[in-house]
């Protein structure tokens, strides 16, 4: 199976995605922090269309040195793709649920070649 041509790198703005279909297989390709990630559009929870969900920064508890809570904050490091069916959150870098890393999305390799984006299936 040849690598799938997804589009030009220039097609992808930061935090944009393209959901493609190949013989019934749906794959979401994302560009986040300049990097590309690709996952099957099938949530590890109930099979929802996770790649058609929204990107959110991970929410973290903002703890002070004395262990009191200062409330919540958005992570500057971790971005999540959130399944629109039930809100399951997956780290866009790993495809795993942070609190249960055994739950993860099916990941595909993304290849960049001559300014174009390909997915290996």
């Amino acid at each position, binding site marked *: 199976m040849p*690598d799938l041509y997804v589009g030009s790198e220039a097609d992808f703005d930061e935090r944009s995605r393209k*959901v*493609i279909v190949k013989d019934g297989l749906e794959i979401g390709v994302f560009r986040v922090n300049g990097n590309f990630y690709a996952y099957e559009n099938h949530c590890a929870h109930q099979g929802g269309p996770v790649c058609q969900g929204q990107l959110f920064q991970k929410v973290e508890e903002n703890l002070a040195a004395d262990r009191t809570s200062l409330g919540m904050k958005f992570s500057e490091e971790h971005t999540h793709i959130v399944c629109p069916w*039930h809100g399951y959150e997956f780290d866009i870098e790993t495809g795993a649920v942070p609190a249960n890393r055994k739950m993860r999305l099916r990941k595909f390799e993304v290849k960049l070649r001559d300014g174009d984006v390909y997915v290996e299936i």
Partner: protein
Amino acid sequence: MAQRTEEIQEAPIQRIDVHTDTREILANARQQALERNYQDYVIFDIDSHHVETVHWHEVCEYIEDPVIRSQAVTSQKASPYGLIGDRGLSYQDVGGRIPHDTARNETVEETDVHRDVVLTRRAMESIGIDYMVVFPTPMLSLGTHPQLHMEVLLGRAHNRWMVENLLKADNRIKSMLYLPISDPVASLKVIEDFGDEPGVIGFMVTSVRNKALHENQYMKVYAALEERGLPLAFHGGYYWHEPAMALFNQFVGMHCVAFVLWNLVHLVNWVLNGLPERFPKLKVMWIESGISWIPFIMQRLDNEYLLRSSEAPALKRLPSEYIREMFFSSQPMERNNLEALELTMKMMKAETQLLYASDWPHQDFDLPSTIFDLPFLSDTAKRNILGETALKLFNLDRPNGK
């Protein structure tokens, strides 16, 4: 070797939002239905919802009191007239992460039936459901209304709206109508007025209410339901203003406990006061509390009862034996520990007592695959939970070809 190909298509929906068609949102559910051959199974959904506040002005037209109806219809306020609810605290969509729970603003071109009929049909056909029981949403808090007469009036108005707009439009859509149980006389009239309407398969008590439902004043209501052979459902809900619930600082904690709490309280009272002995033919079911609480309360009640059986003299058997004869809806089914789930289903006799529920379009909805894919259930058990038990319980026609 990488190569360009023209065979790749872009999915028609790149990002699901509040305008996305139900059939697009549930496209993966449709795929599951095809892969699992749901066409060979009866699938009955005991719990789905519509959002009545979207059409509240229509519901108000059915208020029977002419003065209150006039006030409700004339009022131009944006908030739904007379309706109590946690509208500003409705965090179910997790800050917009779950768009279908935020709003469903999809296009509906059909004009021969109400918009909610179309939305219900789209969900049924996508998920693979033969019969869908529809309940309201914010009205699940109506049992906390400070004005008893408004609970009765609004409950009756919504019942009439349901019958005229949903139930008469499609015989695959069913409901257990709102019973304003806090007023037993009014409840009796609701049973008399609506019990024979098309699509009415029982009545529903919104569990969130601080009334002791085993008290004598309610017995005539249960007797009327038993006599008519109509099941009684208790539908869980939340009420953040309940003092103990106000200890939770986030929706997740409050929702987790509250949706079990009132069903738990009413079930304990139901059992310990011997209601199953008094109404042995009345079918009772508990909706939308999940199922992990059932083995907890079975064990705890048996233990406590045996220590103090003189305080529950109406019982002739262990509390758990009565609970095992009740019916429960499956959703939101706790599935993260399959060993615990298997034991739960064994303890509650899920094969004959559990009914599949989707809770669509709420944020914690379950698909039939949550039952179908369980590795420890027999095919008979799956069929029963997904629909066969409900067909018998509600005495419904078998869908064509099934």
